[in-house]
């Protein structure tokens, strides 16, 4: 038997999603075919998705081999830890009153999860790029646009081993200048430019 692991995983992904959708849809009134309630279309869509997921799942056993990429032990461990830390972090952080606005709790827990994920070389590219972007969100309001860009670029620079400090610094300066010109000077978006927490 030649299992197509990519299709198998896709099938499971679709089945789980469809199941979740159908479960969440229990809150919505279905109505009937003539007067459809808010739950009618979701019901159709998720049942269809469930069916398609099942077909993808079953046919994956006869699809020929297409293995997933090899995961090392550290990939598994960091992924599990990152998910756990992210979820736990969100629960804890959202109880802190100072962090209850501006989605700070959400942003910080993503950053924590991504930093844990970055420990494993297999996830480093993904984790550093996304950590940079999340840090941008966390810092933007209090730190201002320029600081957030600088931090984001520096963190994301770790995704490419060929980056050198001087090159990154040049990148930061160039991007701050470019973004000031495009977004502040030309488009005039409403955002703090300089830090406000002093």
């Amino acid at each position: 038997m030649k299992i197509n692991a990519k299709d198998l995983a896709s099938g499971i992904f679709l089945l789980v999603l469809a199941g979740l959708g159908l479960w969440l849809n229990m809150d919505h009134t279905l109505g009937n075919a003539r007067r459809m309630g808010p739950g009618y279309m979701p019901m159709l869509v998720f049942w269809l998705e469930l069916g398609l997921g099942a077909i993808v799942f079953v046919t994956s056993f006869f699809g020929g081999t297409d293995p997933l990429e090899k995961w090392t032990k550290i990939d598994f461990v960091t992924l599990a830890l990152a998910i756990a830390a992210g979820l736990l972090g969100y629960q804890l952080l959202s109880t802190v009153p100072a962090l209850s606005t501006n989605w700070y709790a959400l942003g910080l827990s993503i950053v924590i999860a991504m930093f844990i994920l970055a420990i494993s070389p297999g996830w480093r590219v993904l984790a550093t790029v996304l950590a940079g972007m999340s840090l941008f969100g966390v810092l933007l309001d209090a730190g201002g646009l320029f600081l957030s860009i600088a931090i984001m670029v520096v963190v994301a620079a770790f995704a490419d081993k060929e980056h050198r400090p001087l090159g990154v610094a040049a990148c930061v300066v160039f991007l701050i200048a470019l973004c000031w010109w495009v977004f502040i000077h030309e488009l005039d978006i409403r955002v703090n430019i300089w830090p406000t927490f002093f």
Partner: protein
Amino acid sequence: MDLLISNLAHGFGVAMSFDNLLFALLGALIGTAIGVLPGIGPVATISLLLPITFGQPATTAIIMLAGIYYGAQYGGSTTAILLNLPGEVSSVVTTLEGYKMARNGRAGAALTISAVGSFIAGSVATLLVAASGPLLTEVALSFGPADYFSLMLLGLIISAVLAQGSVLKSVAMVVLGVALGLVGTDVQTGQQRFTFGVPELSDGLDFAAMAMGVFGISEIILNLERPEVRSVLTAKVGSLFLTREEVKRSIPSVVRGTIIGSVLGILPGGGASLASFGSYMMERKMSKGRAQFGNGAIEGVAGPEAANNAAAQTSFIPLLTLGIPSNAVMALMVGALIIQGIQPGPRMVESQPDLFWGLICSMWIGNVMLLVINLPMIGMWVKLLQVPYKYMYPAILTFCAIGVYSINNNVFDVYATVFFGILGYVFNKLKMEPAPLLVGFVLGPMMEEHLRRAMLLSRGSVSVFIERPISAVLLVICALALGLMLLPGLRKKKEEAMAG
């Protein structure tokens, strides 16, 4: 005919305004740049620039975004011919003969025929859009809700059938897109669906955040994971002039490419990449120089390059006349229009004449600009290829982050983009094609509305979809399209075509 001419005159008036010319040029330049650069495509770029267009008038915004799409078709061929690397998916087949020509010392000729062929095809296709637009619009105005539903269903199915990879998974991705489109407030009852009490979600998932995450951010990550392909220029550009024999051989190929590209562009789910594959297959079978294929036959450059540009123009037809996006780029255009407060559909020709005719005329102007941008300035674009990716991705990331924030001035959208970035990464690893997802996401809410209206009018009877002739025909085509793909022979053909 008189009406067409007066409409076109009106369109040229709109397109020739200073702002619109400037943004058409800007779009053409950006399009050429991302076309030349491998690793960043029009879908990612347009989603990246979507927030920047909010402040502009709708016509100017769409003119620029359209310029990026067809500009990328011009730029993609440069990289394909000179470096044997496809700058875009639609120029994959250009590498086959174009790079061989470059190694034979005819790089200049290959570049010229691809730019001139694209220009001829683009001009013809633009005329086709102008002529067929109002005609199709009249047909579309007689559509009822049931017909619309079936039409959108057809659009979804064909976009899945023609996507790369497994048809089954692409259909699943379309449905997933429709499912994601359900998030938000139910239009008819006001009930919140799948919002988890998050106020930011009551207007639905943000289209730009999704497109940027699934295409922009995940592309950065995937490009960085791959070892960078060092671009080494192996061939000199040489003379840009064609010999008389080359001209003679290319003309029929350009004509055939224009026809096949225009047809495949109109098809829902079609678009530039499908057209260039189709044209290449045709040239290999039909052209006089088919014996030379594999050794740098000019027909293999002229045909596909004409076809992909023709298709890039005609794929606007279903969008402008029916309001139905035929591929991921057009789905982004719908997003841009909706954000501007314009509901794409058959009434657009009448209610937005500036937009409709201005866009068509600016496409032609844009093609003229691209001819100039690409041929005499080829050296500049070759230089651009020397910029390493490590300096490009921080810029893309920064533009994504600020752009997505500026839509609602809310950092929630930044985190949503991060989430969709992860999702796009997973899709890629599982070989799930994300383009149909975007089409499903855009069409889903419209489909629900039409379905509910149709069923209300028919008092809950499903037979309305078969009783109305337009709807019935469309549903038959849906069934045929799906049925054909189940035939093993055809499926193999498609795989061959997609693999080039």
